Each structure stands twice: as C-alpha cells, then as structure tokens.
C-alpha cells in the first residue's frame, strides 16, 4: 500500500508544480490536476480494498520520525479510506465537471481545488487537533477561492460572509485547542481522549470551545446562514464538493472530537444534530430556489448524521454502518443533484422539468431523490432501519419520532420537486450536457446503486439487489428501448412465472393474496396492450410495485416485509404520477404512504427490541421488554397499514391518486394495491389479536374507524361528478367494510374481509377499466357530460351493470355472499353501535352505483358523442374476463373460500361455515348460491320470455320520443338529468361530508410551511447577522448544557 501521506504530498506537489507551468498551458495544467486527483483516488481506493476485502489492520502514520503525541500522526483505517475515497472522487468528478470554468481561470484555480481536496483528506486523516485546525483553515481559504468559480455575482458576497463567520469560529477553535493542550499536555486526539480532558480543570470548557467550533463547520441550525448563501451562489460543482466532501470531512472531525469529549457530549451532538435536521427540513419547505433547497437539505442530512454519531453509546459497533450509510447516500445524491443543477438553466424548482426530455438524466434525478429519501435499495434505507431498531430498543422514542418526522418533511419537498420535474411544462430550451458533466452525473448514479449493493451485502439480511422480483423489475429499466407490447408480454410472463414458481409455498390466506397480486396483476396488464409506443417509465414502475407485492407476501422477517412495503409504495407512486393531472395527488399519496411506512418501521422496531432479526410471526409472542408496549406497537402498525387502505382520516390521498391515474393504472392501484394494506392488517390481527390501551379495546376502535370509513367513503362517492373519483371514494368505503370484517375478530368477519378482498379486486378492476375506457373515448370523466353511451359502448356497459349489482350486494351475484357473511359475522359482534353506521352505509352504495351507470350509459346521448367508438379491445378483454370470474365466484364461492375457512379455524376454531352440498350454512342462517342463481335466472327468463311473447312487435323509437311536459325536446343537454344527481340527499346529509379531514391536513401542511417561511426570515442575508447567529448558538448551547 502506498502511504496515505502521498494523498497530501501528491496534491501539494501538483499544486506547487502548477505554478511552474506557463499560464497559457491550460491543458497541461488541467491534466496535471486530474492526474493528481486520480492518483489520490488510486491511493484511497487501494486502502479501502485492503481494509474492506483483505481485512488489513488500521495503519498509524508517523511524521518526522517521532512517536505521537510528540509529532503529528495520521491514521488510515477503514473509515478514513472510505471517506478519502469519497472526497477524492467528488473532487475528481467536480474537476471534470468544472473543466470550462477551470480552464478559464487557469492554474491558480486548479491549485486551489487540489489543495481543497488535499485539506479535506487531511481533516479525515490527522490525529492532531491543531493540525485539524490548520486543515480547516485551508478549507476556509480554499472555499473562499472556489466560490469565485461561480458565474453568479452574488457568490462574492456569499464568500465574504463565509469568511466573517469562519474568523469567529477559528477564534473559538484556537482558544479551545490551547486550553485543551494546557489541560492535557498534548495535542494528540487520542492522547487527549486518554487523558480524559473533561475531568481536568478548564478541560470541559476547552473541549466545549473546540467542539462548538468544529460543529459549526457542519452548519448547525440556526448558525448556518452563510453556508446557505454559498450553496445557492457557488458553482454547482463546488457546491457538490462543499456538500458531499466538506460535510463528510467535518462530520468525521466531529466524530474524532467526540472521542475526546466522551459520553457526556454525545447528547449534545444528538441534540444539535436533531434540531438541525428537523429545522432545516422545515425551512426547506418554502424554498423555490433549487440550489438553496439542496443547501437546506445538505444541512439537514449532516444534522442527521451528527445525531447518529451522538447515539453511538447505543449504536455501538453499528455506528459506522448507519452513519456512513446515511452519509454516503447524502453525499452521492447531493453531489449528483448539484451536478445536475448545473445543467438546468433556470433556478426555480419547476425549471427542472427541462430534464424530462432526457430520460437518462431523469433517471439520475430519480435515483438521487430516492437515495435522499432513504428508499430501498439504497444505503439510507438500511441505515434508517438499523437506526430505528436501536433507538426503539433503548426507548429513545422521542428521538425516533423526531427523526421520522424530519424525514417525512424532507420527503415532502423532495417528492414535490420530483413531481414538478415529471409533470410541469418543460421549457423549450434544450438541456445542454457536455460529456464531462455527464460523466460526473452518471458516476454518481453508478456509485449510488453500487453503494446500495454494498450496504445490502453488509446488512446481514437479504440483499435487496439480489432479490429476484426486484431484479426483474429493475431489468425493465434496461429494456426501455423495447416497444410496449413486448415489455407487456415479458411482464405478464414474469408475473405468472413467479406465481407458478412460488405458489406451493403459500398458506391459503397468502395464496389468495398471491393470486390477486400476481395473476390478478397479470390480467390487469392485459389492458396495457392497448397502449402504443414505448411507454417509457411505465414498466419499471409497475413491475417495481408488483415486485414489492410479490416480496411482501413471501416476507417472514420484519425487514423483508418493510423493504417490500417501501418498494411497492415507490413503484405505485411512479405509476400514479404518470397520470395527466396527478402531480399533487401523487405527492399526497407518497407522503401518506411514507408516513404510514414510518409508523410501521417504528412499530417493528419497538416490537423487535433490538433483536437483529424479527419474525413477523413473533408479533404474537413479544419478549418481555416489548410486552407492555404491545398495544402501542399494534396501534403504530395498524395506522401504518390503514394509510394504505385509506381509512377515514388518512384517506385524502386516495381519490385523486386513483382518479387521475392512467386507464390501466387505476385498476392496479385500486384493485390490487389497496390489498397490500389489508394483507398487513391481516398479519397484524393474526399475530397480535386484541390489545387494550387505557382500557380501550383497540379492535373496537378499529371497528369504529372502519364503520365511519365505510359510511363517509360511500357518502362522498355519491356526490362526485367525476366518474373515476366516484369509484375511488367507493374504494374507501369498500375498504371500510373489509376493515370492519377484520376488526370483528371472529371467524366470519375475517372470511368476509377475504371475500371483500376478492370481490373488490374483481369489480373495482373491472369498473375502473370500463370507466377508464369510456373516459378515454369521450375525453372527459365528468359524468354529466356523458349519457346514453349504452348504444355506443355496449361492451363497456355490461361490466358496469354486473359490477354494480355485485358491489351493492344484490343477489344473485357474488357481492351478496359478502353481505351474507357480514350479517352472520356481526351476530356475534361485541360492539353494536358501529353496526348502525355500517348499516347506513349499505344502501348509500346503491345510490352512487346507480348514478354511475345511469348518468354515463343511460339517459340522453350527447351530440358530441354520437360517433364515439367502443373501448379498445385490450381494455374490454380483461373486463370480460372479470365478468366471467365474477359469475363463477358468485356460483361457487367455495372454490376460494372453503380452504380459507378451514385455514381460519386455526385462529377461530368456532363459528366457521358448513360446506355441505351446494348450501353454505352458519350457526344462524343458510345460503345456497347455486339455488339463488337458478331461481332468479328461471324467474327472470320466464318473465322475459313472457314479455317477448306479448310484446313481440315492440318498435324501437328515436332518442327524443318521450313525454316531456307536452314538448318534444331536441337537445340532449336539457334532458339529461345528471349534474348534482342526488341533490336532495346533499341537502339532508351534506353536513357529513364537509372536508374536515382535508382541511385538517391542509392546515397542518400550511402551518409547517408558514413556520418554515417565518423561520427563514432569520437568514436576512447580512454577514454580520450570521456572526451574531453563531455567537448566539455558542451561548445557547453553553447555557442549555448548564454551563458545561
């Protein structure tokens, strides 16, 4: 191995050498710089290789031939190797990116860049506090120089503000160092740590000064205004270094100092880090300038890592894994985003829509955003999981809650941005991207995925990037050049194939879900054959969702479950985002989903109590420390899952998301995706069962929520003018029923929930396809604009007819089976009042369904639709399959239900159904689906035959042949009664559907925004104020710590 000293020596030698080159030899100077940086990368990569793969021991590097503490020494270990590699790589890529700017400014600028990178390495390597100070000052000065690479005039002011504050910081650092030296007689970090500085006279205070000064380099809230200005105005390539490399180095410096400070100072680090994390994220919310937003986000991420470092007392050996996981995610993503920002002409977030015309750059952006948000399979995801595990085990719940809250806020602005990118109007200007710039950006993308792989490998769990379904989904990224129908065939084949491979593994319950997720998904995909072109982005997203679901049902470990959960969330988010006007809805979907996911994460973490692997099945037998927390765990998990099923209160994302999605996406996200939440609830109730919290039976609370969800979902559905929205609200109501069945906690209740799972899949997928087809042909979703379409689109009418009979539970179709089981189930219900609510919900379903079929297909045909064609074949085909399925399931529900019924005996031995002959019996009643079907069929057929006989000469009349107050109308508009269809109902019951919940969430987000907007007035742009902030920060920390 080459001594780590060469990192410093090479950079310096090259920097000095540059001075010897003639000013005109720009190319040569640039080459020397790149060569030096490449050499440095080689050195640190070599060390990383040695440590990570060959298990080499850390090396102490002495200078001046004397032992520490008498001479400065450096250390090269795993962390140092990784960090220097990160720094050098960022440096090299930024240098590539900066080619034009650097060539313009010449060798001096190159030298400054080299020295900056060298100094960052120095900070990481050195074990001497004063040496640390020297390197920090080098960074300060180099930053002062590199800021000027920017084309932005304001960079000058920003640089000066930075220098002002740096001066103040360095005063504190120097005073701290000299007193620490006085107290311990050494300048060596390990020496100081060994001499227990804090116990010496004045030692604690000296440490405080050093600590606060180094922490200030992390830009803690509120002492960070100067850094934001730099982020905003500097050249993006420098901001990349400033964010990724400087942040990493400063964090490591703090880490070293914490070694000196010992356990006493860990809470301080945590506190500062956490406040910074949360505050910076809230401050970022109202940002519109991209680079400043990234600046806030950098500060927040650094704060988070600081908080993690402060938790090393409980994280122990896992600290590097977690901290570096978060740090690496942040660094790679942030560097990548800054590089990208250089390609975007405008500085407003919406200007980034320019990237949309460049799919590869778009992919890069998405990668970075997902990394930042800590989504799988990136390192941040693993880190977050481990962090939650440890925090929950030690009962540091407030901390966990704050971290998750901050992460959610962060996801809020990141995904809002992503939405702008994908949905906003792209500027006409072409995005210019030189090969150098592209190299930098894509190197970051590759690094991101590679890190994801490494972290998965190190996690001691399933490496997500080796899981077959996920790989299959990701493979579609490489297949994007294929036409859509090829990809569709591949996708269907893959899903069916996976089902065939795995179906023997499932118990009956899981098998039902597996069939719906995989086979059901494949059927819905048939509709996608209707799409033309390449459909960029559709297949990776859809397959990601399905991969998540496939992994979800197979998961036994809580980690696998959670990872699958996040994957399906992300996949479905991108799917939903594809809709024309779905930007705000996709955002609210992902936010609610992530919020729910965080609750699930917290729930699992609490339940595991630090155990590295936690089997979901053992939720039922929690260990001692977790046992008293069981109701809380239940609550967290239940709410988490309920965000996916859109229970009332957390339902507001659903209508928009489902309604605005594309024609073939709506059935996927409604018919299939919602079942993931139910699956979670099934697992939860199966394992944890009943829990009491403050004397309240939680399943009873669930009953109430479910009943209200059913009622209000249905009620809101009847007042919709938009057909797809109507169906979406209806899903909320239906999920309420299913949840109700689960919460009943008896055999039949669960059976009913399963019945709903199957039924809802079939008819909701069918209805969404049918209505989607109609909307596609007519170009509108407003029902009152349609009417009389039965003549134009009879094939789309049939599924709707069948569908509404099924949904409303009218015999003889399968919906009735659900209702019958429901009534039998509630016979033993413990709580009767919620039943009243759900009774009320029943007939209301009938209302909106009638509206759906009437206002679209019946009534008067409008002039503009006289030439409308039937929906495309590929959209009709799956509907017909569903019709057949529905009829089959109506006649022989036992096909699916019998096995599940038997399986449920395991949990509720009593109250099962009897399956003797064609009749199905319970302890209260009986039901014979075949007989019903035959009786109804025979009566119907007889009467029809009779009518046909007596009325054989019926004459078809024209559209307006109606008695209309003695007039013959001729305009369909005046005769199609469709708008505000249930006006009397609104008068009577409208008070129940005031958008209270929407208002609540809106107020909440508004409050956050306002808070961010007010708080950021703190950064008034005056360099002096920033110095004030820093001093106030010092004093505040000092006082809060109780005077050290």
């Amino acid at each position, binding site marked *: 191995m080459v001594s780590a000293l060469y990192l410093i020596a090479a950079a310096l030698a090259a920097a000095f050498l540059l001075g010897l080159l003639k000013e005109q030899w720009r190319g040569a100077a640039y080459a020397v710089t790149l060569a030096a940086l490449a050499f440095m990368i080689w050195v640190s990569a070599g060390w990383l290789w040695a440590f990570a793969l060959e298990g080499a021991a850390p090396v102490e590097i002495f200078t001046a031939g004397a032992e520490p503490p008498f001479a400065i020494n450096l250390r090269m270990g795993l962390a140092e190797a990784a960090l220097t590699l990160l720094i050098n790589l960022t440096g090299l890529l930024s240098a590539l990116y900066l080619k034009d700017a650097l060539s313009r400014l010449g060798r001096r600028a190159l030298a400054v860049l080299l020295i900056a990178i060298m100094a960052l390495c120095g900070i990481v390597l050195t074990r001497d506090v004063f040496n640390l100070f*020297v390197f920090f000052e080098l960074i300060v000065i180099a930053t*002062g120089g590199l800021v000027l690479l920017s084309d932005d*005039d304001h960079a000058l002011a*920003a640089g000066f503000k930075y220098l002002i504050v740096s001066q103040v910081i360095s*005063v504190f650092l120097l005073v701290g160092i000299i007193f620490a*030296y006085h107290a311990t007689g050494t300048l060596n970090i390990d020496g100081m740590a060994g001499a227990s500085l804090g116990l010496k006279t004045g030692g604690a205070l000296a440490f405080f000064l050093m600590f606060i000064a180094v922490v200030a380099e992390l830009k803690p809230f509120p002492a960070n205004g100067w850094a934001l200005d730099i982020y905003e105005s500097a050249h993006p390539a420098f901001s990349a270094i400033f964010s990724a490399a400087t942040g990493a180095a400063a964090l490591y410096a703090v880490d070293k100092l914490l070694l000196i400070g010992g356990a006493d100072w860990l809470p301080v680090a945590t506190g500062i880090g956490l406040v910074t994390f949360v505050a910076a994220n809230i401050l970022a919310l109202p940002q519109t300038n991209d680079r400043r937003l990234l600046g806030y986000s950098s500060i927040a991420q650094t704060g988070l890592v600081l908080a993690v470092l402060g938790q090393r007392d409980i994280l122990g050996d896992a600290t590097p894994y977690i901290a570096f996981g978060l740090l690496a995610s942040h660094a790679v993503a942030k560097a990548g985003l800054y590089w990208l920002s250089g390609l975007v002409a405008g500085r407003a977030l919406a200007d980034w829509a320019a990237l949309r015309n460049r799919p590869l750059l778009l992919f890069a952006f998405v990668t970075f955003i997902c990394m930042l948000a800590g989504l799988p399979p990136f390192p941040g995801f693993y880190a977050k999981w481990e962090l939650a595990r440890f925090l929950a085990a030690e009962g540091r719940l407030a901390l966990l809650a704050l971290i998750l809250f901050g992460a959610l806020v962060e996801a809020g602005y990141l995904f809002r941005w992503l939405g702008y990118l994908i949905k906003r109007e792209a500027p006409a200007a072409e995005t210019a991207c030189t090969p150098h710039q592209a190299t930098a950006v894509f190197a970051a993308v590759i690094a991101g995925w590679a890190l994801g792989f490494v972290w998965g490998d190190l996690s001691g769990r399933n490496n997500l990037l080796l899981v077959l379904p996920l790989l299959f989904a990701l493979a579609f990224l490489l297949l994007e050049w294929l036409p859509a129908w090829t990809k569709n065939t591949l996708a269907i084949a893959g899903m069916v194939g996976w089902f065939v491979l795995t179906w023997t593994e499932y118990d009956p319950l899981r098998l039902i879900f597996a069939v719906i997720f995989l086979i059901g998904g494949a059927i819905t995909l048939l509709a996608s054959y209707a799409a033309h072109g390449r459909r960029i982005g559709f297949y990776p997203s859809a397959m990601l969702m399905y991969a998540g679901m496939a992994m979800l049902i197979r998961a036994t470990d809580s980690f696998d479950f959670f990872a699958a959960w996040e994957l399906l969330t992300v996949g479905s988010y991108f799917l939903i985002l594809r809709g024309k006007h779905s930007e705000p809805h996709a955002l609210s979907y992902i936010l609610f989903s992530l919020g729910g996911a965080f609750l699930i994460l917290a729930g699992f973490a609490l339940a595991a109590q630090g155990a590295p692997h936690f089997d979901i099945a053992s939720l039922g037998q929690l260990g001692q420390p977790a046992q008293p927390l069981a109701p809380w765990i239940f609550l967290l998990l239940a709410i988490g899952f309920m965000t996916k099923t859109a229970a009332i209160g957390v339902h507001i994302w659903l209508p928009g998301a489902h309604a605005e999605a594309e024609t073939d996406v709506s059935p996927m996200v409604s018919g299939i995706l919602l079942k993931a939440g139910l699956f979670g609830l099934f697992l939860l109730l199966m394992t944890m069962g009943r829990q009491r919290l403050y004397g309240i039976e939680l399943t009873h609370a669930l009953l109430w929520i479910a009943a209200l969800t059913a009622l209000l979902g249905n009620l809101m559905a009847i007042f919709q003018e938009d057909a797809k929205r109507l169906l979406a609200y209806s899903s909320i109501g239906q999920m309420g029923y299913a949840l109700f069945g689960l919460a009943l906690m008896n055999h039949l209740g669960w059976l009913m929930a399963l019945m709903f799972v199957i039924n809802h899949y079939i008819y909701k997928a069918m209805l969404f396809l049918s209505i989607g087809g109609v909307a596609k042909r007519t170009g509108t979703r407003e029902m009152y604009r349609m009417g009389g379409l039965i003549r134009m689109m009879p094939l789309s009418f049939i599924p709707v007819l069948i569908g509404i009979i099924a949904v409303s539970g009218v015999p003889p179709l399968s919906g009735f089976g659900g209702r019958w089981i429901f009534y039998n189930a509630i016979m033993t219900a413990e709580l009767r009042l919620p039943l009243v609510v759900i009774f009320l919900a029943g007939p209301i379903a009938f209302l909106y369904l009638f509206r759906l079929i009437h206002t679209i297909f019946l009534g008067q045909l409008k002039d503009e639709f006289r030439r409308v064609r039937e929906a495309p074949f590929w959209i009709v085909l799956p509907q017909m399959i569903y019709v057949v399925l529905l009829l089959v399931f109506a006649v022989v529900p036992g096909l699916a239900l019998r096995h599940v019924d038997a399986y449920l005996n395991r949990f509720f031995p009593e109250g099962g159904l009897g399956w003797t002959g064609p009749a199905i019996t319970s302890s209260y009643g009986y039901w014979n689906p075949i007989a019903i079907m035959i009786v109804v069929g025979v009566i119907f057929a007889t009467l029809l035959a009779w009518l046909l006989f007596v009325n054989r000469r019926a004459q078809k009349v024209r559209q307006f042949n109606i008695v209309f107050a003695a007039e013959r109308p001729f305009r369909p508009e005046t005769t199609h009664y469709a708008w505000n269809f249930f006006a009397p109902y609104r008068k009577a019951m409208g008070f129940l559907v005031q958008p209270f919940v929407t208002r609540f969430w809106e107020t909440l987000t508004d409050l956050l925004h306002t808070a961010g907007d007010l708080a950021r007035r703190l950064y008034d742009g005056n360099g*002096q104020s920033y110095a004030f902030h820093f001093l106030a920060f010092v004093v505040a920390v000092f006082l809060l710590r109780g005077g050290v």
Partner: protein
Amino acid sequence: MAHLAMATGFLLILVGFYGALTNRNILRMIVAFSIADTGVNIVIVAVGYMRGRSAPILDSTVSAADALARIIDPVPQALVLTAIVIGVGVTALMLAYAYKLYEKKRSLDIAKFTELKW
C-alpha cells in the same frame, strides 16, 4: 503575569468581536478581526508562559542538559507562529474580497450585500 496577558488577550478578542459585530464597514470589520486574532495569539502565548524561565533556544545560557528546568513550553510558541500566518492569509483574502465587493457596489457597507437570503 500570565493571567494579565491572558486577560488582555481575551479582552482583545471581545473588543474585536464587538467591533466586527457593530461596524457595518467591511474594512473596519477586517480590522476588528485582526484585533481578535491578536487577542487569540496573546492567549496562546500566555498559556505557554512559565514564570522565571527563558525562551526555548539552546545557546550559551541554556544548555541542552538543563533545558528541562530552564525553558518555557515551546509548543504554544510553535502554534502561535502557525496561527499568525494563517491569520495573515485570511486577512489578505478578506481584503481582496473587500476590494472586489467595493468594486461591485461602490460601497463597503456589509448590510448592502444581502441579495442572498431566506
């Protein structure tokens, strides 16, 4: 003696800070920081001072053998040298910045350079 020097040093730091916080003129701020830097340097040197001993240079008066008992702590002296030089570097940089800022706005008022905020 050491206390006195140290108190002076601290006082200079505070004076420098006060000047930097209350003067809006950039040049005055730079001067104020120089004062604070000087204060820090004095503090550093004061920490190394030991009553009745001489500078850490071996010559006819202090031989290598009795150095242990005769010289003061050399480390702060080495450190202060570095600190001074770094201070000079930063000051030079700030002056250059001040010049450029003035060139841009024809003003040295720090409160005028607030385009970047929030």
